[in-house]
C-alpha cells in the first residue's frame, strides 16, 4: 500500500486530535438534544455507551494491527463466531461459562495465528489474507451450527453483556478496563513500543533486533482474541444467537481507527483516539436514526465525516 507523505507524528498533534475528538462527541450530544429532546438523557447515554463498548473492545485489535501497518478484515466474522459459539457452548448454564470463554478465546487466537503467519512469514498482503481467513471463519461457524444458530446465553453472561454495575452498563467497565490495559501496553511495555517501530520502519526495526514476524503474528492473535471476546459478550447482550451480527463491525473498527487519527501506514496513533472514534461513529449513527434519516443518508453522512477528518489530519506536505 502507498505510504502517505504526511503522517501524524509528534505527541503535541496527537493530543490536539484527541481534544478535537472529544469536542466533537460533546457537540454531537448537544446537537442531538436540540433536535430531539431526550437524546442526551442519562438513559439514552447508557444505551449509546453500551454499543460503543462493544465496538471499542473489538477496535483494540484493529488499532494494534493497523499500528504495524496491516489491516484486519476478520473482525466481523470472528465476532459472529464468538457470539454464535457463545450461545452454543454456554447453553444457558453458568457452569459452562468458563469453558466456553476459554475455548472461544483460543479459537479467536488460532484464527489470528493463521492471519499472522500468512502476513508475516508467507508475505501475503494483509488485506487479502485476512479477507480469505474471514471466509474461512464464516465457513467454520456455519459448519459447526449446521446453518441454524442454537443455544442461549447464561445469567452471568447476560449480566456482563446487558446488565448494570454501579449505575452504568457493566460492558462499559469491561471496556474501560481493557482500554487502560491497551494504553499502558502500547506506551509502557517493550512489545508495545516494538509494535510502533515495526509500523514506522520495517527495515530499521529489523536491524535494531526486533523480531518483526513475531510482533506481526502477535498483533493478529491479540486482535483475534479481542474480536472473539466481543462476540461472546454480545451473546450476553442479545441472549440468543444471530447470523451476521458482526457484519458491521469490520467497517466500524476501521472507521473508528481512521477517525481516531491512527495512520493507516502504521507507526503513529494510539488507542485513545480509536476509543473516541468509536464513540463518534456510534453517536452519529444514533443521531441520524433519531431524525429518521434512511440508511442511504446515514451512509452518505458517514462517508463525508471520514473525508472531512482526512482533510483535517493529512494536510498537504509543505516542502
Amino acid at each position, binding site marked *: 500500500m502507498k505510504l502517505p507523505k504526511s503522517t501524524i507524528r509528534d505527541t503535541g498533534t496527537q493530543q490536539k486530535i484527541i481534544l478535537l475528538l472529544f469536542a466533537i462527541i460533546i457537540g454531537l450530544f448537544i446537537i442531538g438534544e436540540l433536535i430531539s429532546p431526550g437524546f442526551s438523557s442519562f438513559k439514552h447515554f447508557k444505551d449509546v455507551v453500551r454499543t460503543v463498548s462493544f465496538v471499542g473492545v473489538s477496535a483494540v485489535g484493529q488499532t494494534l494491527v493497523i499500528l504495524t501497518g496491516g489491516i484486519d478484515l476478520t473482525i466481523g466474522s470472528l465476532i459472529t463466531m464468538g457470539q454464535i459459539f457463545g450461545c452454543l457452548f454456554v447453553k444457558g448454564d453458568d457452569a459452562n461459562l468458563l469453558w466456553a470463554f476459554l475455548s472461544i478465546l483460543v479459537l479467536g487466537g488460532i484464527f489470528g495465528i493463521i492471519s499472522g503467519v500468512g502476513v508475516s512469514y508467507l508475505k501475503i498482503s494483509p488485506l487479502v489474507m485476512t*479477507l*480469505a481467513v474471514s471466509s474461512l471463519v464464516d465457513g467454520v461457524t456455519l459448519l459447526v451450527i449446521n446453518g441454524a444458530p442454537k443455544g442461549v446465553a447464561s445469567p452471568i453472561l447476560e449480566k456482563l453483556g446487558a446488565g448494570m454495575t454501579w449505575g452504568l452498563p457493566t460492558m462499559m467497565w469491561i471496556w474501560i478496563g481493557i482500554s487502560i490495559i491497551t494504553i499502558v501496553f502500547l506506551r509502557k511495555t517493550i512489545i508495545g513500543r516494538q509494535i510502533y517501530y515495526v509500523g514506522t520502519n520495517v527495515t530499521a526495526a529489523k536491524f535494531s533486533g526486533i523480531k518483526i514476524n513475531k510482533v506481526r503474528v502477535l498483533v493478529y492473535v491479540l486482535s483475534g482474541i479481542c474480536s472473539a471476546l466481543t462476540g461472546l459478550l454480545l451473546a450476553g447482550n442479545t441472549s440468543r444467537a444471530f447470523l451476521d451480527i458482526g457484519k458491521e463491525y469490520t467497517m466500524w473498527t476501521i472507521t473508528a481507527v481512521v477517525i481516531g487519527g491512527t495512520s493507516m501506514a502504521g507507526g503513529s496513533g494510539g488507542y485513545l483516539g480509536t476509543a473516541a472514534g468509536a464513540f463518534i461513529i456510534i453517536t452519529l449513527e444514533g443521531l441520524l436514526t433519531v431524525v429518521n434519516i434512511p440508511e442511504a443518508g446515514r451512509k452518505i453522512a458517514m462517508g463525508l465525516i471520514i473525508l472531512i477528518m482526512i482533510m483535517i489530519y493529512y494536510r498537504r506536505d509543505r516542502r
Partner: protein
Amino acid sequence: MFERRRNLLIYLPVYIVAVSIYLIAGILQPRFLSWNNNVNLFTRIVPLLLAGIAQMFVLLTGGIDLSVGSVIGLTNVVAALLPFVDTGWNIVLWLIIPPMIGLAIGLCNGFIISRWEFPPFIVTLATNTVWSGFALLIMDVPGGKISMNLYRAITGKLFSLIPVPLILIMAIISITYLILRHTVFGRSIYALGGNKNIARESGIRVERIEVATYAMSGLFASFAGMYLSVIMISGDPLVGEPYVMNSIAVAVIGGVALSGGRGGVQGILGAAYIFYLIDNILNLLGVSTFYQYVAKGLIIILALAITSREKGLPLRIKAK
C-alpha cells in the same frame, strides 16, 4: 527478454493453479467439462474480470480503490432505471450515461488523492460509503428493467457458435493489454508504480497519470455494473458490495503487487477463473454451502501463498 522471463514467472503460477483445479474438477465430475457449463462460466466471470482490471490500474501505481463496489452498485441501478426502449437515442444514452458516472467518480477520487496526497485507502473507503448511499437513495430495493433484446444479445451466440461473453472477455483482455503495454499512458503507470520520484524526474506527469488510473478504474467498474444489470435484467443497489474485496483478491492472485509496478491483465483472467471455478465445482459436486465457505477460504489462501508473495519472486529485489 529479461522482462518476458520475469512475466512468465509472475503469470505461470496462476494458470498452473487454474488448470489443475479445472482438471481435478473434470476428473471428479465429467459434467463439469461440458460446453454448456463452460459457456456458463464465461458469462459469470465477466463482471469480476472487469472489476479486477479496474482495481489493477490503481494497484499498479501503488494506490488502491475501494470505491469499485459502489461504482458497480450505482451504475447498475442507473442502467436499470434508464428508459429501456432499445432503439435510436435511447440505446446510445444507455451506453453513455453509466460510463460517464463511473468516469466522474474515478476522476473525483483521483483528484482528491493526488492533489492533496491523501492516503487512497481511506479516501476511497469514504467515497465508497458515500456513493453506495447514493445508490440506495436512487433505488432502495432491487428493481428496474432492462431491455430483453440487450439480454439476448449479451447471453447469445455470435453466428450461433461463439458465445458473446467469450468475445467480450477477449476484447476486454486485448484492449487492456494494448493500453498497458503499447501506450505511453500504460508504460507511465508501470514507471510510476516502480518509483514515483524517478518517474517524476524522467518527465512523467505523475499527478495526471495517477488521476487517469482512478478514472480508468471508475470506467471499468461501471462496465461491470452495466453488464450485471443486463444479465440480472434488473438493478440492485447492493450488488457491488462483494466486489470491493473480491476485485483486490483477484488482482493479487493474478500477480499484481499491492506495492505497485508489478503485474498485468494476463494474470487477472486466470485469477477470476479460479474464483468461479471453485464455486462452480463445489456446486456441481453437491458440496453443502457451509463446506463451500471453508473450501473457498482455504483454496484462496493456498492460491495466494503460491502466486502472490508481496515482495514478488526472488528474481527482483525491491526496497520496501
